[in-house]
């Protein structure tokens, strides 16, 4: 694999914007879906850019992730493909989630291409809103040193921060590069064509960047394993889980921001299905001495987990949105990791590989029987 190093003193975002501009000017893509600073200046939204004059104002790698890109792309293509050729600028976790949603028919990937950017992580959204100017500055530094103690915990344990195993066309590398350098890497034949259309010929060695990724991968994997080990005791068994989630106020924000939670209406919000007559609650209170309200707290989290854990990309959006500071993402990532390993499945890695819940195989049952020991 070869890449093309761009040297520029303007920083990563500006360099990426130049590439985006070329893509539009050369007619390689008709539109760009890219994070852009909200008018308030304190947050970011996705902007579908048709007119190239808006490219100047976009922020390809914003310091926070208040909106998971997969949700934006879902809004665009849920009811069918787009006829425009759209280039989506996203973090790896957003792209992975998009691929999962395409398997669940919530995103149509026809005419969609992705460009990912090496991501050092994101700040907690609320931290940023209170202190955006300063954090903007420190994010620029983080992109060079690739280390910070105020990033979201789920970013610190993220092992897919670059483009490893992403089934996409284009990537921008930053990790391990000099302060004034980024590297453009085509990840597919199509990616090479896209780049040559804008006169970027990739002939430069990328091994330095690749080594830096490997090192970071190892460091993050260690972080992750350590975090999982610590977490395991805290969340094993129903009592521990209840404690873990005990601050939950049933606002369901975690579900609302989760890219994978695609249901039109969550089962736990369909009151006629889960609500019971008062008498039932009184009996439960009688049996246990008392019951917590709102009810269905742990059931909601476990239910949501059972539905989406196979596709969970560990983006941390749930935790970022929790008003009670419950480390939701960590327990979900932990569970997802176990489950995905069990099914030998990596979300967002292969576009054609169905999610295990979408396949119905008789021999799976046999496998289960064997595991239980045939009686």
């Amino acid at each position, binding site marked *: 694999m070869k890449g093309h190093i761009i040297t520029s003193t303007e920083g990563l975002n500006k360099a990426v914007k130049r590439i985006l501009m070329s893509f539009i000017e050369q007619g390689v893509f008709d539109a760009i879906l890219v994070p852009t600073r909200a008018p308030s200046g304190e947050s970011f939204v996705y902007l579908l850019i048709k007119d190239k004059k808006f490219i100047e104002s976009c922020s390809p790698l914003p310091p926070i992730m208040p909106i998971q890109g997969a949700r934006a792309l879902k809004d665009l293509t849920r009811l069918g493909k787009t006829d425009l050729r759209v280039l989506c600028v996203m973090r790896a976790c957003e792209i992975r989630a998009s691929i999962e949603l395409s398997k669940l028919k*919530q995103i149509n990937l026809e005419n969609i291409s992705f460009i990912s950017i090496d991501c050092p992580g994101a700040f907690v959204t609320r931290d940023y809103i209170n202190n955006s100017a300063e954090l903007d500055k420190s994010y620029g530094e983080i992109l060079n040193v690739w280390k910070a103690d105020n990033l979201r915990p789920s970013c610190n344990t993220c092992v897919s921060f670059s483009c490893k195993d992403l089934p996409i066309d284009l990537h921008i590398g930053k990790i391990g590069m000099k302060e004034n350098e980024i590297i453009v890497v085509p990840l597919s034949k199509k990616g090479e064509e896209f780049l040559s259309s804008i006169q970027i010929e990739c002939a430069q060695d990328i091994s330095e960047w690749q080594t830096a990724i490997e090192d970071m991968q190892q460091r993050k994997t260690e972080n992750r394993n350590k975090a999982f080990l610590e977490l395991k005791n805290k969340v094993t068994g129903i009592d521990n889980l209840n404690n873990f989630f005990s601050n939950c106020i049933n606002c369901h924000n975690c579900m609302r921001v989760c890219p994978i939670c695609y249901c*039109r209406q969550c089962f736990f919000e369909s009151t006629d*299905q889960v609500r*019971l007559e008062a008498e039932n609650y009184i009996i439960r209170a009688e049996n246990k001495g008392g019951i917590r309200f709102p009810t269905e707290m742990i059931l909601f989290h476990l239910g949501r987990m059972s539905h989406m854990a196979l596709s969970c990309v560990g983006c941390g959006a749930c935790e970022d949105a929790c008003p009670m500071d419950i480390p939701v993402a960590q327990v979900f990532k932990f569970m997802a990791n176990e489950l995905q390993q069990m099914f030998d499945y990596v979300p967002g890695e292969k576009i054609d590989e169905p999610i295990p819940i979408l396949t119905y195989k008789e021999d799976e049952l046999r496998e289960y029987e064997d595991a239980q020991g045939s009686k």
Partner: protein
Amino acid sequence: MAKIGLYLCECGPNIAQAIDLDEITEAIKKDNKVAGIERHKLLCSDDGKKFLAESIKRNAFERVVIAACSPKQHEGTFMEVMLEAGLNAYMFQLVNIREQCAWVTPDKNAATLKALTVIRAAINRVKHHAALEKKEIECNPNVIVIGNGIAAIEAALKTAHNDRKVFLIVEGKRIGDTYKNRRLLLSSMQSAEEFLRSKVDELKSNKQIEVFENSKINEILGFFGNFIANIDTEKNKNVELAAGSVIFALEAESFVPKALTNLGYGKFDKVYTAAEFETIDVDETEPKSVAIIHCVGRKKLGYCSKFCCMNSMKIARYIKERSHESKVVQFYRNLCLPDKQYDKFYKDTKEKGVEFVRFQDIEVAGEESRLAIKYKEENGKESKLLVDIVILSTGLVPASKTEEFSQMFNIPLDEYGFMKEEHNILNPVATITEGVFIIGGVRGPGDIDDSLEQAGAAAGKILSSLVPGRLQPLETKISRVSEVICIGCGVCVNVCAYGAVKLDESKHISVVNEVLCRGCGNCASACPSGAAQHRHFTTKQINQEMIEILK
């Protein structure tokens, strides 16, 4: 509140002795959730059913719980009584306090408590039952038969009738092609060609049968009573044929022993499979000595093909009849002679001078211009026999098209690649897709007799279920998908074994085909948002039942 009636059946001594029904009556009365409790010695008897119907009417119950035996046994019986009593058949819940309580819980107190719990759960559940209406559709009595062998021909002949048409679709071949490659038939030793000609004449003279030779099936859509096949015929493209049922009668294919070089196949010209031997010019070779080796590929295939032992003897007799001087030796491990006339056929074959040798090991080698059979007999003795030709008796394997068709209809394949019957004893020619039948080599190896029998069986099933003008009752307890809640993720589509759930591309939601749905509930359990619901096992109904048991 709807008026709920509870009926306790004593089932003679079965329930009455094992469960304290008085205690249950008292407890339920105390709960004050039912409008009346009645008890009877044997509710399924004529007297019991009469009592039940009259009692429901007299008490003006709106919903009914019956605590008796397994729904497998009498749910249908009591649903009929419900109709008689003027209620919807689904406003009722049968509680199994016999098989699941009385018969399995020896302690009377424990059995009583268990029965009480499940009765309470049923009372809680029946409150949420909805009236379900039976639907019927008009069926198309025509039949599509796919295949070109004797099973297909026979099925077409048997189902053709004055008021129904039969479309016999022969993919890529002429009808009866493989029979032209056979000299004699089992076990009558009748000429295969004559037999075929008589059958084909019969086919062609039957005005109700239309034969499409050299055709290609593009797709078959629909369901029992209403299938539409799209085919390319010799003359036209995209011909549409409408029928109510489909019979798959693809012939099995002869196993070709590619990897068995120790038997000389593919190495020596004069080593043939039995199927190949049928097609060679025997007059030209006029073999003086022939070895027929049985069960070739048996171990690899994993099953006995049933017809091959007899077929080997048929070939042996054919050779013997042409020239008494020829030496024919059958090398076998085991002989499969299951039918009543087969043993006689074997003895006759022996009498005609065909030799039988039971071997442990066997190998075919070339020796000058002849073939040497080196074998180890049953007693361990090693011998050698020089022959002119070797015939390998191979079994049958599924036709190459089998898998493609199985996917078209969601018919599972067995471990050998044949289509799977709905039940090998109870429903051997039917499949899990209603209205689709499998006969002959597509469902497993067998002989002509099997094919003829199965063709008759499938014809009988079709003639009795798809009568012209008859309305077909549909399954009532099926699934439905809420248009409001469904978001079209397709999880339900993937878990449906009946192909009954499809995505509506324009609405971006799932839709249940009410004719194909069998009410298994897979979609309802897979749906993350609860948009797919089983009409008689709604989340609410199950929830209410469970809550009562778990509280």
